[in-house]
């Protein structure tokens, strides 16, 4: 890596990051009520006795991401990929270590802000506002969002409540809303797994576009092909540890041998 010579501009720096989840209520059946009382009365003390389990999800991960890069995150289920993304987005605290970012990275996910009982149209507005877009921006991009999602290709569906959509349609609308905003650092978690092939191609195009706008894109996916199509660098996490960090082909090859064994 010849990053020093050209002095690329870093957008995300992760420095020895550890992330630990605390899960309540895992105590064995016996005495769990007293354990709960214990936990309320003496917070911080005797976590184990109080039935709190610690899950060490990410262990000592360090990397530097640069402007204009698209980085894939791979690893088997439960290896800490999504957790790492949430920490980069500033939505999960790190146990130790530091994550430095340029501006505010955003997780591509407006799902939580959308309401199934409302029409697609109102959800576009609501989702846009939730992501911090202004009303004018939303009005400007409304048509693009609808066209991109392809919701109206099979009739006037955008004026129907979202609960009437098929899961694929809903996922497409969500991606379209989320991708409508320009992000400095965009974090995508399995978003491309949904939708038909045609939509996947369109999404990949949009990701390349976002990268072109001087952003950095992180993509978590189990689909090695979509990683190949969009990313030139891959981080491989296994059991919370960064196992490999390098060019896509090299890492994917090692990963494929690993998963086959």
């Amino acid at each position, binding site marked *: 890596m010849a990053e020093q010579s050209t002095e690329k501009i870093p957008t995300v720096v992760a420095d020895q990051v550890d992330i630990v989840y605390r899960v309540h209520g895992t105590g064995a059946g016996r005495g769990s009520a007293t354990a709960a009382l214990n936990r309320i009365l003496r917070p911080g003390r005797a976590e184990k006795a109080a039935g709190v389990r610690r899950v060490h999800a990410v262990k000592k991960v360090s990397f530097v991401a640069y402007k204009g890069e698209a980085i894939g995150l791979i690893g088997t289920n439960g290896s800490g990929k999504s957790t790492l993304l949430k920490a980069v987005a*500033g939505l999960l605290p790190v146990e130790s270590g530091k994550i430095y*970012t340029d501006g*505010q990275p955003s997780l591509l996910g407006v*799902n939580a802000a959308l309401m199934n009982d409302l029409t697609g149209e109102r959800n576009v507005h609501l989702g846009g506002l939730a992501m*911090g877009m202004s009303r004018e921006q939303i009005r400007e991009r409304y048509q693009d969002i609808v066209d991109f999602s392809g919701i109206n290709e099979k009739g006037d569906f955008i004026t129907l409540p979202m609960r009437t959509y098929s899961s694929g349609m809903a996922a497409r609308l969500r991606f379209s809303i989320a991708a409508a905003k320009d992000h400095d650092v965009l974090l995508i978690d399995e978003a491309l797994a949904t939708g038909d092939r045609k939509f996947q191609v369109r999404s990949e195009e949009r990701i390349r576009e976002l990268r072109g706008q001087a952003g950095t894109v992180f993509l978590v996916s189990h689909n090695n092909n979509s990683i190949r199509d969009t990313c030139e660098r891959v981080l491989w996490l296994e059991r919370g540890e960064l196992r*490999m*960090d390098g060019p896509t082909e090299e890492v994917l090859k090692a990963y494929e041998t690993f998963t086959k064994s």
Partner: protein
Amino acid sequence: MSQVLHTPPPAPARAEGDLAALAARHGLSVSGARPTLTQYVRQLWARRHFITAFATAKLTAQYSQAKLGQVWQVATPLLNAAVYYFIFGVLLGTKHGVADYIPFLVTGVFVWTFTQSSIMAGTRAISGNLGLVRALHFPRAALPISFALQQLQQLLFSMAALVFILFLCGVPIGLSWALTVPTLVLQFVFNAGISMVMARMGAKTPDLAQLMPFILRTWMYVSGVMFSIDKTLKNTTLPHWAQTLLEANPAAVYIDLMRFALIDSFKAHQLPHHVWAYAVGWALLAGVGGFVYFWKAEERYGRG
């Protein structure tokens, strides 16, 4: 399953200070730090459209599956009032010596419901919306405020039903009706403030949501929703401090102000002393105090 590390982590083992220095050189900031209070207010102001849109969306989503749809916004409070009329007006015939008892009661119930449901919604504002909090960046105070706003909109629908009931009971329209506006504003600020306090506490201890209904019910019974505090205090042996406490009770203050504004036969002497001072004081105390208290934990919501 043995997972032996065939390849040692190739990430160059840089010294810790090295990465921090690189970040500092390019002006990167630590992810997920709490903004200052002024920044926070500015961020919140920038999200004002989200706050209103979210409140309205929640309100409309509520009845979207019902055949009658939004008609329920007015029908629900009307039915509520009908039940109270049936129990207190017809079955028990209790009037507690209050003129226009039905308007008196219904106003009390609606205004109290506004505070009660704001606080209940506030308690679950963070703990019930973890998905949203964990997926998107926005000042978290937007949630409790938005829920309080939703309840305010709900109250406005109830007020429409209330006006209808006032007509039925022959209560005349007066200039004093204009007082409903400052009363509503003050009560909204108070409710939003308490919601923010409850949101922070509920985020840490979700069990509060189970406890709140009991606390709120107790609060309701001492707030003069079904009886006149003024009348009760006149022939009572309660110690002085308890009387002051009953009169200063913010819920009672807002309820009585609303009755004074709407009901012709509810006279000024029935109001507690310094009622506007109490109304403004409570609103400021809860509003500002609640906001600062909520902001203090901003970076911890939705975590762990």
